[in-house]
């Protein structure tokens, strides 16, 4: 029987999510045995053209060339799965979506004209149909292996959508907001990191993006009662998942309200 053909593609990103696959040291050789890795430039010089059974896509769309490239990958792939915050929410580089791209380019490059970039940094799903989105900045390698396993078994992958708070309770971490007054995005952020930051005495900063049914308005109100300004709360949401719809809507609302108050 032919092994499923796996390909890994990269757009604007830090390589951290595809590195998660190489970081699965104990499982790497087993994964490499279960599938045929036919395209993975970071790991191998062996490169084959499509079609692919599974295409893992890391990174966001930020250049005209990349906007075209993703179309061909979609045509070549049976399952297209995005990995990480850049591919599923535009990444930290989506902060340019609120700014003047040209001014940003001028701040970094002496001759911005040499380089073609789009006004925005957008998730893959804004360009092509995506079969499964794996969240995280970076993704969780065990979730990645589980999703690849599910796809190989013909099952729909399942990753938890509950909030980080539940995981804190499970691992017995005392709430950093209640006990220390530390601002924490845990109530509105999707599980996946094993409630990491609170276990290191700091508030969650939202690496996995909005949880299912996250109540952003309620959390903002609570943070305001604790003394944070609307601008500060909006700023916390404008992070690695700034362009994820729920975070984007709330930060926009807060900025607008603050503007109205100032009149």
């Amino acid at each position: 029987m032919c092994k499923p053909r796996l390909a890994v593609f990269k757009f604007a990103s830090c390589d951290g999510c595809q590195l998660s696959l190489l970081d699965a040291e104990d499982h790497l050789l087993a994964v490499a045995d279960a599938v045929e890795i036919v395209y993975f430039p970071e790991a191998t010089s062996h490169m084959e053209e499509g079609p692919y059974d599974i295409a893992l896509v890391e990174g966001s769309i930020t250049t005209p060339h990349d906007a075209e490239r993703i179309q061909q990958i979609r045509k070549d792939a049976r399952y297209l799965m995005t990995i990480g915050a850049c591919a599923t929410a535009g990444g930290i580089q989506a902060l340019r979506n609120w700014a003047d791209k040209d001014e940003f380019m001028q701040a970094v490059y002496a001759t911005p004209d040499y380089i073609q970039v789009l006004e925005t940094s957008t998730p893959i799903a804004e360009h092509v149909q995506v079969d499964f989105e794996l969240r995280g900045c970076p993704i969780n390698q065990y979730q990645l292996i589980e999703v690849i396993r599910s796809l190989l078994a013909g099952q729909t992958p399942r990753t938890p959508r509950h909030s980080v708070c539940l995981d804190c309770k499970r691992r017995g971490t005392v709430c950093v907001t209640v006990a220390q007054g530390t601002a924490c995005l845990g109530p509105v952020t999707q599980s996946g990191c094993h409630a990491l930051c609170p276990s290191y005495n700091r508030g969650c900063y939202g690496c996995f993006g909005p949880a299912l049914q996250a109540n952003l308005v309620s959390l903002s109100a609570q943070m305001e009662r604790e003394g944070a300004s609307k601008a500060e709360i909006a700023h916390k949401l404008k992070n690695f998942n700034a362009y994820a719809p729920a975070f984007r809507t709330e930060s926009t609302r807060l900025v607008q309200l603050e503007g109205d108050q100032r009149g």
Partner: protein
Amino acid sequence: MTERKIKVETLTRVEGEGGLYVRLQGEQVQEVRLEIYEPPRLFEAILRGRPLEDAPDITARICGICPVAYQMSSVHAMEMALGVEITPEIRRLRRLLYCGEWIESHGLHMHLLHAPDFLGFESGLAMAKQFPDEVNRGLRLKKHGNQLVDLLGGRAIHPVNVCVGGFYRIPSRNEFQKLVPDFEWGLNAAIETTRWVAGFEYPELESDCEFVSLSHPDEYPMNEGVMQTSSGDQIEISDYREEFQEQQVPHSTALHAIRKTTGRPYLLGPLSRVNLNRDRLSPSARQLADEIAFEPECRNPHRAIIARGLELVHSYEEALQILRDEHSTKQPRMTYEYQAGVGMSATEAPRGTLFHRYEIDAEGKIVEADIIPPTSQNQAQIEVDLKAWVRQVIEKEESQVARLCENLVRAYDPCISCSTHFLNVTIERS
């Protein structure tokens, strides 16, 4: 006279995306371009207006392989701007975290990315069938590096525990002690790995580069020191911008760097560090360098993998010492008051010196950020070395020249995602 063009569209087994273009006229090399087409992510612009505490979390996202380097350079720079003095204990734990990143990054590069070139494989995974012991050893070494960053940093990719002033939480003595047996095994395995790579067949190549790295009077450079050059100059970090200059070139999204005084490129990374600081390697690493007769000033970039091996041994030995001695630091971090100021720092990322400079205002917001990663500084020197290399292998057919060029580029372990603000090989012959 025929013109030949050799193009490598996508460089593989490097971090990030780029290509290579070579144009030949008869037996003359006309042009060699390392083409970095990694999309720019504009971090320096993103950082403006954000609280200074965001710098370690955001700059970590520049690179998934060396996030610790970004975190270390940024926290040191911020501490300089704020006038924060850290304790010797925090300083030691930061070196421990850096050891973890060097072990993870060097272990990955040596076994999965670079060794396959010497043994004729297209990947570490393909190599695993004939060299299962070596690949499994490499995976285990890499895993140790990740475990250490995981423990002290919270997670291996984009650690969460580093902050301006120190750490959010210091793990317990028991948690550090648990790693000791693995690191004892790892020290010996790292020595074996280095002996193994030292036995590879290396093509002759002599680079006339200037070596540059941090240097510290009594320790192997990681977090502190002055910029030492092989021509004998010593440059204070505060003079970095005056001595090293970035230039934009049309064919790359990465900026090129040169020495201002000479107008020439320079080389950062493991080869430079070992050449300039060999006497400060740990005892086992120094002894091993002598045993394998590693040249006192190695000028062959292909042999950088051996320098990586020596640093791998050093990292294990230093990490072991800290892991055994750590008695759980009482004060995880220093407190500070906001003040307007300028701070800069250079630390040794696995691929070379990484410079950060920030201007902050009285409210603790970032006004200006300037980040000079190692690969963009090395890019011009890589092109010079590639030119010399192509001259040596020019009579070979295109596909072989392209492959040999790719091999050389991988020797530098370029970190392309980092460098943008990078690679395909194209060779043109006429």
